[in-house]
C-alpha cells in the first residue's frame, strides 16, 4: 500500500469520526432541549384550563371541590420572600464585605466556608434545621420560620454575588478614595456601594428566583394554610406549597387542575426573575469590563 493511499484512507476515517462526533453532539443538544419544551408545553396546555385572572385573587376552596384561587399562596410567598430578603441581604452583604474589604484572616475564611457550607446543604435539611431551632422553640409552625428558612437559601447566593462584585472594584477607585483621605465608611457608602449596587441587585434577583420556587424548606416551617393569613407568626401558604398540596391529591381532577395552574403562575414568576437576573448579570459584567 502506497503512503498516499494510506494517508487518504486514514484521513477519510478521521473525517468520518469528526462527523460522527458532530452528529452525536447535535443529538445530545436536541435531547437536552426536549425537557424544557415538554415541561412548558404541559404547564401551558394544562395550566391554562383553570387559570384566569380571578384565580390569582380568589380565596382557596376545599381541596376536592372545583374552583378556588391562590391569593393565600401569593400573599404568603410575598411576605415570606420579602422578610427572607430583609434578613438575608444585610447578612449577605456584611459577609461579603467582611471577606473582601476587611481581610480578617482566619475568621474571614471560617465565615466564608460556613456560608459556602450553607449553599451546599440540601434545602430539606435547611427546613429541618429551622424546624429544630425555630418551630420547636416557638411551639408552632409559622411564616416567620418559613422566612428564616428562605433567608438561609438566599444568603449564600447574595453573599457570593456581592463578594464577586466587591472583588472587582477597580483598584484606581480604591486608591482614589484613599488619596482623598476618605474614611472607609464614607468610601463604602459614597463610592463602593453605588458601584456594586447593580451587582448586589443581581444577586438579590437571582436569590429571589431561587427562593420563590422552594418547597422543601417550607414544609416543616411555614406548613401551609388554606386560609388567607397575613400574620407572620401563623402558618401560611406559599405558591410552591399550594401546588404541592394540590399535587398530592392527584386523584381529584379539580386539585390537579389547580396544581397545574399554580405551577404555571409559579414558573412564570420564577422565569421572570431568572431572566431578569441573568440580564442584569450580563450587563454588570459588561459595564465592569469596560470600566
Amino acid at each position, binding site marked *: 500500500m502506497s503512503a498516499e493511499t494510506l494517508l487518504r484512507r486514514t484521513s477519510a476515517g478521521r473525517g468520518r*469520526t*469528526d462527523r460522527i*462526533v*458532530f452528529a452525536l*453532539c*447535535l*443529538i*445530545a*443538544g436536541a*435531547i*437536552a*432541549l426536549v*425537557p424544557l419544551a415538554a*415541561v412548558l408545553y*404541559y404547564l401551558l396546555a394544562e395550566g391554562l384550563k383553570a387559570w384566569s385572572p380571578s384565580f390569582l385573587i380568589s380565596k382557596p376552596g376545599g381541596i376536592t371541590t372545583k374552583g378556588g384561587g391562590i391569593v393565600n399562596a401569593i400573599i404568603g410567598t410575598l411576605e415570606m420572600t420579602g422578610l427572607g430578603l430583609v434578613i438575608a441581604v*444585610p*447578612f449577605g452583604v*456584611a*459577609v461579603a*464585605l*467582611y*471577606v473582601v*474589604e476587611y481581610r480578617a484572616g482566619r*475568621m474571614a475564611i471560617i*465565615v466564608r466556608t460556613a*456560608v459556602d457550607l450553607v449553599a*451546599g*446543604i*440540601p*434545602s*430539606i*435539611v435547611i427546613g*429541618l*434545621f*429551622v424546624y*429544630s*431551632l425555630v418551630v*420547636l422553640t416557638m411551639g408552632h409552625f409559622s411564616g416567620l420560620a418559613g422566612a428564616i428558612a428562605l433567608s438561609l437559601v438566599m444568603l449564600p447566593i447574595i453573599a457570593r454575588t456581592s463578594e464577586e462584585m466587591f472583588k472587582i472594584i477597580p483598584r484606581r477607585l480604591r486608591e482614589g478614595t484613599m488619596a482623598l*483621605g476618605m474614611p*472607609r*465608611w*464614607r468610601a*463604602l457608602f459614597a463610592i463602593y456601594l453605588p458601584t456594586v449596587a447593580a451587582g448586589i441587585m443581581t444577586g438579590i434577583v437571582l436569590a429571589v428566583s431561587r427562593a420563590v*420556587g*422552594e*418547597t*422543601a424548606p417550607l*414544609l*416543616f416551617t411555614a406548613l401551609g394554610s388554606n386560609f388567607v393569613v397575613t400574620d407572620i407568626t401563623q402558618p401560611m401558604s406559599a405558591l*410552591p406549597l399550594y*401546588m404541592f398540596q394540590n*399535587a398530592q391529591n*392527584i386523584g381529584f381532577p379539580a386539585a*390537579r387542575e389547580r396544581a*397545574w395552574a399554580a*405551577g404555571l403562575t*409559579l*414558573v412564570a414568576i*420564577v*422565569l421572570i426573575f431568572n431572566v431578569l437576573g441573568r440580564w442584569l448579570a450580563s450587563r454588570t459584567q459588561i459595564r465592569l469590563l469596560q470600566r
Partner: protein
Amino acid sequence: MTASTAPVEPTSPGGLVRRRRLSMGDPVLAWGVRILSWAALAAVVVMLIDTALNSAKILQHESILDFLFGTVWAPASTIYGAVPFIYGTVVSSVIALIFAVPLALGASLLVNEYLPARIGGPVAYAIELLAAIPSVVYGFWGILVLVPVLRPIQLAISESPLGTIPIFGGPAPGPSYFAAGIVLAVMILPIITSVARDAIRATPRLQREGALALGATHWETIRHVVLPFARGGIFAGIILGLSRAIGETIAVLFVIGNQPQIHASIFSPGYSLPAVIAGEFKEANQPFHPEALIALGVVLFVLSFAVNVAARYVVSGFEARAGGADVR
C-alpha cells in the same frame, strides 16, 4: 486633606466635633460588619449543633450501627434503619449521572465548539432555564407526564431477556428508582452543562489553534486539547450535579414510589433520604420516628458534605496537574 473631605469649616468648634464623629464611622462600620458576619456564622453553627442534638435522641432507642446499617424501616414497630434510603438516594443519583453526563457533555460541546454563537447562545440559554424550574413542578410533571411514558419502556425491558438480570427485573409498576433518576437527570443537566461550558470556553485559543495548525480535525482538537484542559471543570460540574441530585427532595418524592425497601431492580419503587423526610415528617407520631427522620437529615447532610469536600479535593488535584502541564 481635611479640607477636601468635609464641607466643614475646620476652624469652627462644631466642625471639630463633627470631624470626630466622622472618624467614628470606621470602627462602627467595621464592628457592624464583623458582628453581622459572626452572627451569621453563629446561626449556622447553632443550627448544626441543635439538629445534631435532636437527631442524637434516636440513640436512646437504637445503637448508631443499627440505625446506619439497618435495612428495615418500620415505624409502626419502631424499627428505624437508614439503608433503604441511602440505597435509593445513591441508585437514583447514579442513574441521573449516567443519563445527564453524556447529554451535558454533548450539548456543551455542540454549543461551544460547533454552533455559531448566534445559535449556540440561545440553545445554551434554553438548557440553563431548566435549572430555574421549581422542583415541585418537575415532580408533578414527572408523575403525570414522564412516568406514563416510562412505564411501557420499563415493562418492555423487564419482560425482555434483559429482565433476567436482577437490576432490570420486574415488576415495573411505574414510579421507580429509574423514573427518579430520569427526573433528576433533567434537573442536573443544566448545571453540568453550564459548568462544563465555562470550562470548555476557558481553553486557551493558542493551544486550540496550535492543534488545528498541526492538521488535527475538529474532534481531534477537542479530544487532545479541549477535553484535557477542561477536565477539571467538567468534573466539578458533574460533582455539583451529583450533590444537587442527592439533596433533591420534592421531585423525587413524586416519582420514586415511596416504599422504604431495598430492591435490586431499578424499575422497582423505592425511597430516598430527602424524600422520606418530606414524606413522613408531618405524620411521624410513633416513638422516635421524628428523631429518626432528623437523623436521616444528618446522614443526608454528611453525604452531600462529603461529596462537596471530595469534589474540592479532586478538582484542586486536576488544577495542580493542569498547572504542571502548562509549565511543561
